């Protein structure tokens, strides 16, 4: 392997951290979705890089499943965000606070 595997780990950790940061600071629900995508894709980087490293296909095949699943998750998410917009006239996640703990 030309690129040492630990570089992939650092890349994926960085992408994951960006995703977590986005979730913590973004208030727009769509940006939140994109941040979740970043976290999932960070996992895909690991899976594919180490499938190559180990020379087995498990990681690659799982990554394909994860990509399809992320698409399904976004579909549900956009549906819920659409309802949010209809009911609250905004997609700011901090505005939907009719319930209190």
């Amino acid at each position, binding site marked *: 392997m030309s690129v040492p595997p630990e570089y992939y780990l650092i890349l994926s950790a960085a992408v994951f951290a960006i995703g977590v940061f986005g979730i913590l600071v973004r208030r727009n629900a769509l940006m939140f979705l994109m941040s979740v995508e970043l976290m999932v894709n960070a996992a*895909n980087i690991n899976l594919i890089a180490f499938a190559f490293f180990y020379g087995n296909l498990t990681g690659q095949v799982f990554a394909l499943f994860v990509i399809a*699943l992320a698409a399904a*998750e976004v579909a549900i998410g956009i549906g*819920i965000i659409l*309802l949010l917009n*209809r009911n609250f006239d905004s997609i700011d996640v901090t505005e939907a606070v009719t319930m209190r703990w």
Partner: protein
Amino acid sequence: MTEFVLQEWTALAPPIVLAITALFLLAVDALAPEDENAGIWLAGVSGVGTLLTLIITGWFLVAGTGQPREGEPASAGAIELFDGNIVVDGMALFFITIIASVTLLVIVASYDYLKDHPYQAEYYTLAMLAATGMAMVAVSNSFVVAFLSIELASLPSYALVASLKNNRGSVEGGLKYFLIGALSSGILIYGISLIYVATGSLQFGAVTEAIVDGDITGGNGILGIGILMILAGFGFKIAAVPFHFWAPEAYEGAPAPISGFLSSASKAAGFVITFRVFVDVFPIGAVGDTVDWVVAFQVLAIVTMTVANFAALKQTNVKRMLAYSSIGHAGYVLIAVAALTGGNQAFILGSGMAHLFVYGFMNTGAFLVIALVEYWGVGRTIEDYNGLATQAPFAAAAMSLFLFTLAGLPLGGGFLSKFYLLWASIEGGVALLAIALIVNSAVSLYYYTRVVKAMWVEEPSESLEINSYPVGLYTAIALAALVTVLLLPGFGFVVEYAQTAAEMIAPP
């Protein structure tokens, strides 16, 4: 008598039946006429499918499918399919029984609850798909299957919580459930990818082998972070404090039968994968130096019990109070993994499984009574329940039974299952867990009693008037109450199956 042997793949019948029912519902919706009777068809098909699943699972359990035969060692007999990616064993069947029972109660109750709901077919289909996912979680034996089935259980649940599309509470609950659920699945999948980085495989047996042999890439650090992230991901699923923030919102906003479904069946699915992964895949003897997860679970269990029960104390909304009580019960069940320090491991694990079984009935029952109250249009706070017994004595009696059993009074199976958990924490030698369990049960008795007192002692407000007694909801509540009471004498039977199942993954 000739003995006939089924093909091996038929061991997977319970989730297959659930999946076929979900698809069949879509066909029924397309073909059935759009009239007022459509609801009975949809509820009927889902009910029959779930009942069939329950019967098949019960038959498998009694017939000994996937369990050790006479004279075989306790860990033998599990049926492994698809190169060991799926396993049907006693624990899987035990949990599918819980999931199918809860789904059946919820479906029967939903028939009345959904009377004027415009998207009934979607509702039932999503519920059946979620049940399929939960059943698949119970049989998964690799991280691939586990992750995909957790998502198959979660994605329909998000939509179900938000299914009252014009109700702001429902949409808000759905949004919060979705956002936190998506975050948790992101953390879970990253944890799984780190396990793959460390061990090079995703099948449970192969991962364990690599860990036990010490054949780990990148040292113990990557493995440890992976285990911790998987722990966090599962923590979200079972709504353990500090990963519980979605639960009160989602349970309060969701249609009440769905709250019962999520807090019982979805929690059971979260626990079966937690038990399997932590007891079987990451044996404490091998990973104890990297991540001592028993200590992590001890902290989680005590914090979950305490925070949830004290938060429930100051709730005025009954549904939200029950939501916190269900978080507290997750804390009680966590004793089953937190006490795995020594002693008879199968006994400890089996007690947690038996508590989940009893909890499935009593907690769903309590949420169904709330569904009934919502159906009548009575308010949601404890004051609104004042004098309910004057108008609906059966519902009030059933609610009192469920609440006292949840608290652990000897009216139903909840007393014995809590007693077994207490015994398990002493067996494991963790006295702190036993103390937390007793103190929190005493605290919980106070807030449960507030509701019972409101129903039986307080004077009804003048506007309280109930003039309909829906058959479906009453049937479901009566069934849940009957099983809860029968579990008091019949608890030995449940705990025996639970411990046999637990012995398969945690030899005594």
